[in-house]
C-alpha cells in the first residue's frame, strides 16, 4: 500500500509521545499515513516551520495558537487546534540554594500544596527578583506560574530557556527556579542542579499542555487528511493511556531521534513516581501527565478561553474579544466529525466551567461513558468563559 507522507514537527519532550507512538506502533500506517517526524530545536523554529509550510502539522504549546489569534508575537497566519495532545506534564523546580533555604524554614517538599509553596517561596526570596525559567513566552508553563504567583508577595521575572538547557541554566545560576516539561525537570534533579518543588497539576489539576496544531488554510484544503492524522494520534493517545504500555512508551521516547533522554527518567512521570531531589526523595502523584483518560484529547473551548483571558489581562487586550478569538481556534467541529467514527465519546457541550471539579464527575456525552477528572485551581477559583 502506498502511504501518504505527512511532515510533522515536534520538540524533544515526553509529551510528544502521541506522535512517536502513532508512527512506531502503526496507528499512522493504519490510516495510510507515513509520518515524517521532524525534531525542531526550539518552539519559535517549530512555529515558523508550521507557518511557512515546512511541516504540515506540529506539536505546539497550547497558548501559541491562542496568542497568534490575539495578534501577539508576530502573528502571520491563523493556527487551529485539532486536538489536545497532553494534559499536565510540567514540574516546578528550584535551585539547590533555594531548596536549602526552604528546608531551613521547615518545608518538607510535600510536592502537593501550591498555595503553601507560593507563601514559602516569598519568605525565602532574595533582595532581587526571583528568576524563573520557562520554555517560551507563550506557554502553559508561563501562564501557570503567572496565575500561581499573581497574589504572592514575591517579585519575580520569567526568563525563556530551552527545555534541554534548563538544568544547566539552574546550575549556572542563570535562573533560580523553573517550570518545565518532563523529562527535563527530572534531568535537573539527576544532575544535582536542584529539587522539584511542585507538579504543574498542583496549580491547575487539568491544564492542557500540548496540542496538535495546523495552519487554518491547510486544514481548510485537507479535511480528510486531517481526519486521518487525528484518528492516528487519537489511537496513539489511547494506547498511551494503558498502563501496560508504559515501559514500551518510555523505551521508544528515549531514542536519539525523539527525546534522547534516559528511559528511566522518562518513566517517572508516566509512572507517577517522581524523584524530587538528588537525595532520592520519592513523591507519588497521580496524573503527572495524562494523554487520554477523562476526555484529555478534546479541545475544550473553555480551556483555550482561559489562556485567552490570561493573555488579555497580561497584555492589556479586550477581554471579551480575546476570549472569543481563543475559542475560535479550537476545532471541536473537526474533532466531532473525524473522531466519532474512531469510537471517541463526545461531550454534550464544547465548553465547561474550568476549576469546578474537585472529584471525578460524570458528564453528558454521546456514549454516556465520559467521566471528567478533577480540574480545580490551587486557589479554589473557577473560570466561567462567559463571565471571566
Amino acid at each position, binding site marked *: 500500500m502506498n502511504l501518504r507522507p505527512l511532515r510533522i514537527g515536534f520538540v524533544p519532550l515526553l509529551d510528544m509521545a502521541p506522535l512517536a507512538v502513532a508512527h512506531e506502533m502503526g496507528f499512522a500506517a493504519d490510516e495510510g499515513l507515513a509520518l515524517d517526524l521532524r525534531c525542531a530545536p*526550539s518552539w*519559535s*523554529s517549530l512555529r*515558523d516551520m508550521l507557518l511557512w509550510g515546512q511541516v504540515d502539522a506540529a506539536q505546539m504549546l497550547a497558548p501559541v495558537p491562542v496568542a497568534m489569534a490575539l495578534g501577539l*508575537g508576530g502573528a502571520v497566519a491563523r493556527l487551529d487546534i485539532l486536538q489536545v495532545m497532553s494534559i499536565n506534564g510540567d514540574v516546578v523546580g528550584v535551585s539547590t540554594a533555594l531548596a536549602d533555604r526552604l528546608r531551613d524554614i521547615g518545608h518538607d517538599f510535600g510536592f502537593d500544596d501550591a498555595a503553601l509553596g507560593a507563601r514559602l517561596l516569598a519568605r525565602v526570596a532574595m533582595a532581587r527578583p526571583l528568576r524563573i525559567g520557562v520554555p517560551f513566552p507563550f506557554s502553559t508553563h508561563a501562564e501557570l506560574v503567572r496565575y500561581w504567583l499573581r497574589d504572592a508577595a514575591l517579585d519575580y521575572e520569567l526568563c*525563556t530557556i530551552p527545555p534541554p538547557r534548563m538544568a544547566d541554566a539552574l546550575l549556572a545560576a542563570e535562573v533560580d527556579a523553573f517550570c518545565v516539561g518532563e523529562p527535563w525537570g527530572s534531568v535537573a534533579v539527576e544532575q544535582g542542579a536542584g529539587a522539584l518543588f511542585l507538579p504543574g497539576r498542583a496549580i491547575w489539576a487539568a491544564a492542557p499542555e500540548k496540542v496538535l496544531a495546523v495552519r487554518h488554510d491547510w486544514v481548510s484544503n485537507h479535511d480528510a487528511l486531517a481526519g486521518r492524522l487525528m484518528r492516528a494520534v487519537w489511537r496513539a493517545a489511547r494506547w498511551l493511556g494503558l498502563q501496560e504500555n508504559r515501559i514500551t512508551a518510555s523505551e521508544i521516547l528515549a531514542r536519539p531521534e525523539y527525546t534522547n533522554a534516559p528511559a528511566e527518567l522518562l518513566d517517572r512521570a508516566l509512572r507517577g513516581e517522581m524523584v524530587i531531589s538528588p537525595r532520592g526523595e520519592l513523591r507519588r502523584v497521580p496524573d503527572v501527565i495524562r494523554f487520554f483518560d477523562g476526555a484529555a484529547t478534546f479541545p475544550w473551548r473553555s480551556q483555550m478561553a482561559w489562556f485567552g483571558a490570561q493573555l488579555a489581562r497580561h497584555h492589556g487586550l479586550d477581554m471579551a474579544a480575546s476570549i472569543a478569538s481563543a475559542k475560535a481556534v479550537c476545532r471541536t467541529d473537526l474533532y466531532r466529525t473525524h473522531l466519532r467514527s474512531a469510537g471517541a465519546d463526545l461531550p454534550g457541550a464544547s465548553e465547561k466551567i474550568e476549576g469546578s471539579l474537585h472529584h471525578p464527575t460524570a458528564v453528558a456525552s454521546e456514549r454516556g461513558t465520559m467521566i471528567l477528572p478533577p480540574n480545580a485551581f490551587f486557589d479554589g477559583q473557577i473560570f466561567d468563559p462567559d463571565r471571566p
Partner: protein
Amino acid sequence: MKLQIVVVEPDEARARLVIDSLSPLGHDVTVLGEVTGLARRLRDIAPDIVLIDMTNPSRDTLEEMALASGPLDRPVAFFVDRTSRDLTQQAIEAGVSAYVVDGLQPDRVAAVMDAAIARFRMFRRMRTELDTTRRALEERKLIDRAKGILMKARGIGEDDAYALLRKTAMDQGRKVADVAGALVTAAGLLS
C-alpha cells in the same frame, strides 16, 4: 546611519564569515558566542537587527524581545512581519532567523538579509557536505571490516570478498554498506 547588528553564533569561524559578509555594508557587527545571559546582554547592546541560526535552541530567548513592553524598550519584530514573503521564505530555507527593531527602512533590512541569507546558505551546504563525507567515511570503514570477516571465514581474497558483498546487496536490493553493517553485527553476535 550605521546599523547595530548582533550575530548570535557560538562557532567562531562561522561568526567571522558572517561579519565578513555584513561589514562591507558599513554596519557595526557584534558577535555573541555565549548563550548564558543572552537576553540581558542584548538589552545592553540594543541592536537594530539580531541574526541567529534557526537550529540554535536559544532562539526562543530572543522571542522575549519581540514582546518587550517597557517604556525604554524598542519594539522588536520577528522580521516576517515586516518584509516580503519571498525574503522570509528564503531565510527560513537558508536556516537564519532575524529580529528587527520596528521602523527600520525595509530596503536596508533587505540588504542585510540578502547578505545573511547567502552566508547561511553556504553554511547549510557545508553542513550537508560534511555529513555526506562523514557518512561515506563510516561506510567505507564498515565495508572494510565486512571484507575482512569474509576473507577470514571463507578464505577468499579482498576483491572476491567485495564482489560477494556487492552481489548480495544487488540481489536483495540493498546498499553495500547496509549488507556490510548486517554482517559486522552478526559476526559480533556469533563471536
